[in-house]
């Protein structure tokens, strides 16, 4: 495993982006590294874009990464993968949850939601590795559609050379005890989806 990883988690307010990035930062600490996490969520609760940086290194200075240097872009929504793709280091890794949340600018007809093929081709033009998954369906299979963010963490864990137990423990510590089993299942489904 590389000792320096810059993550960028992006999505839409209400998708659990911040919880997932909290957990990813905690995993960094649990692996014995330094870790920082930084988010921007001014109007996020009102359907705006959410961005959250996570950085792992032996010693982390800035809590945010730099344009064009992100190693792993984790998009909780398809359009957001396209919005943030220039932050990725060329050859970096992208995880995409293939959920579409239509922005107001599209629903009122001022803009067009690009089609899936165009988004994926833009992402693939820059990324070295792209994993797409249907997080909602997998979360439903795990027993709760709100566990999408755990599914995504499962997929992310499969792409990094890190022990899955560390992730699972960090997730279980964070969620209410009655949801522990659902989240364990969601994590494993996400992990399997990315590994296959």
């Amino acid at each position, binding site marked *: 495993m590389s000792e320096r990883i810059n993550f960028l988690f992006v999505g*839409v307010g209400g998708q659990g982006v911040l919880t997932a990035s*909290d957990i990813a*930062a*905690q995993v960094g*600490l649990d692996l014995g590294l*330094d*870790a*920082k*996490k*930084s*988010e*921007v*969520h*001014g*109007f996020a*609760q*009102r*359907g*705006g*874009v959410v961005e959250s940086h996570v950085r792992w290194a032996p010693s*982390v*200075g*800035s*809590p*945010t*990464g*730099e*344009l*064009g*240097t992100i190693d792993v872009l984790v998009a909780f929504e398809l*359009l957001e993968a*396209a*919005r943030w*793709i*220039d932050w990725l*280091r*060329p050859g970096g890794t992208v995880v995409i949850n293939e959920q579409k949340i*239509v*922005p*107001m*600018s*599209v*629903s*009122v*007809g*001022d*803009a*067009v*939601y*690009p089609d899936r093929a*165009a*988004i994926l081709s*833009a992402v693939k*033009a*820059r990324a070295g590795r792209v994993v797409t998954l249907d997080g909602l369906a997998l979360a439903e299979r795990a027993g709760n559609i709100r566990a999408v963010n755990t599914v995504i963490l499962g997929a992310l864990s499969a792409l990094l050379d890190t022990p899955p137990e560390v992730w699972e423990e960090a997730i279980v510590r964070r969620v209410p005890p009655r949801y522990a089993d659902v989240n364990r299942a969601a994590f494993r489904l996400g992990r399997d989806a990315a590994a296959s």
Partner: protein
Amino acid sequence: MKRLLSGNEAIALGAWEAGVRFASAYPGTPSTEILEALAGYAGVRAEWASNEKVAFDAAAGAAFGGARALAAMKHVGVNVAADSLMSLSYTGIKGGLVLVSADDPGCFSSQNEQDNRQYARFGKFPCLEPSDSEEARQFTRLAFELSERFNCPVMLRSTTRLSHSKSAVEVEMPNAPRAFEPLPPFERHPDQYVIIPAIARVRHPIVEQRLLDIAAWGETAPVNRIEWGDRSIGVITCGMAYQYVREILAGYSFLKIGLVHPLPKELIRQFAAQVETLLIAEELDPFIEEQVRAMGINCIGKEVFPLVGEFTLARVRQAVRAAGLPAAELPPAPKTEPLAVPPRPPALCPGCPHRAFFYNLRRWRRQMVFSGDIGCYSMGVLPPFDAMDMLISMGASIGMAHGLKQAGAQEKVIAIIGDSTFFHAGLSPLANAAYNNGCFITAILDNRITAMTGGQHHPGTGITLQGREGQPIDITPLVRVMGIEHVREVDAWDVKAINDALKEAMEVQAPAVLVVKGACVFTPHFQRRPVVAVDPDTCTACGTCFRVGCPAILKSDETHPKTGKHKAIIDPLLCTGCTVCLQVCPVKAIYQTGGEEN
């Protein structure tokens, strides 16, 4: 044990470790979570105040009595508290008094990016600025000690990035409930705490001497530290700027300033004398830089570093290169083939009680001027409503409306203010309007919460920070008792009733108040109803429902055969059944489903 804490959580932890007994705040991004975290420490009396001045005054009273006390606010909140803050610098205190100012470089959620380090210089009290969560915790503890040692308020300055970033904190103490004994009998010091002119004149030289004493302390305090490396470049820095610059100029020398006011001038001289090129890296104002230049020391500062906006790694890298200094080059990253990515601007939530009001307001554009205020309803300025003409600060809507009308505006003027903002700074200007017979309308949008900052309580809900239910203050009788006769309550989701109320208020030649009542969708008071749907055969694609600006109303793929315009569909997962779109549809194409409420 190491835990990830946000800067705000770490400030709360540090305050608790320091034995804080009383804490008060008015919610404001990015400071809100400090009090929310402190409320979790049993034994600490933590409260939401009705505004920042009240929060600070309450903390001052506690500190006069010998308690350690904290007031937290966003940077512009300090403007509200400044009257007392300036006096308190003269009076001093008994118990430690810490003012947390959370600044907002980059204006993520604020009306300006004022640099509140200037307040410390202006008011002649010390200011500490941490660079990560561990320092936030330690500096908060230190702030209480300094406050008592030097008998003055201490400002702890945070920024959005510090407050909302998480980094590792060594958590030592268990969070056990703390029982405070009653305070000792109040020690009277009217010669100090009663700041009449004769006493102020005596106190001022004491304040000046105090500043010199604190500066002398800072020369050797570990809170200011030199990290020696390659001495060809030396950087004086503080706060978040330190984190960016230590990455970009790794291996060079740093003077990291934790006590940003008063500055350790001898330490700065020593450092400057031992480095070849001196850089000063600080966000926003050239606060340190101007003082260093005034000492006759050459440095590179704001000629390369940005004066406005937040620092980032990229901006610091660019500044260092602009200074002709080595900064690790990044391989130029190719731009991805441009793809038109639609923006995701913030919008009023589905079911929001502000929607029907702003839909109506837009229709009065020719006859009215809209005087706005701060809250979710500030979004009334955005399309499709375009219904806000002025907005400057908390509570200003009412005063501005009054002045514009008194000066002879031809249009009717309407002030638009939320319930929490009304209790913050709306009562006094409304009393002024009643007193001077200001002929304008005040619309109080009562959604029973401080919504924009994430749902905090206030005097109008009667529920405390800890969730205890008390007596809510009812706005309508409160306004009536000021002598305002025209006061109308109206249902926030009743489109016609709101318009009728506006029409009626237009004719009133005296102060008129509308209380628009409807709970925020994030409160338990909000009632979801069966979702609505569009009958595509009846829909004429006229577009009226799109002008209510609801995220649940989408363009259908189906178009009208004659106009080619898109018909509407409603996302049943987002719809809350508020029926505003149903009420505005001119052809009754929208109907309530019999289905389950969402």
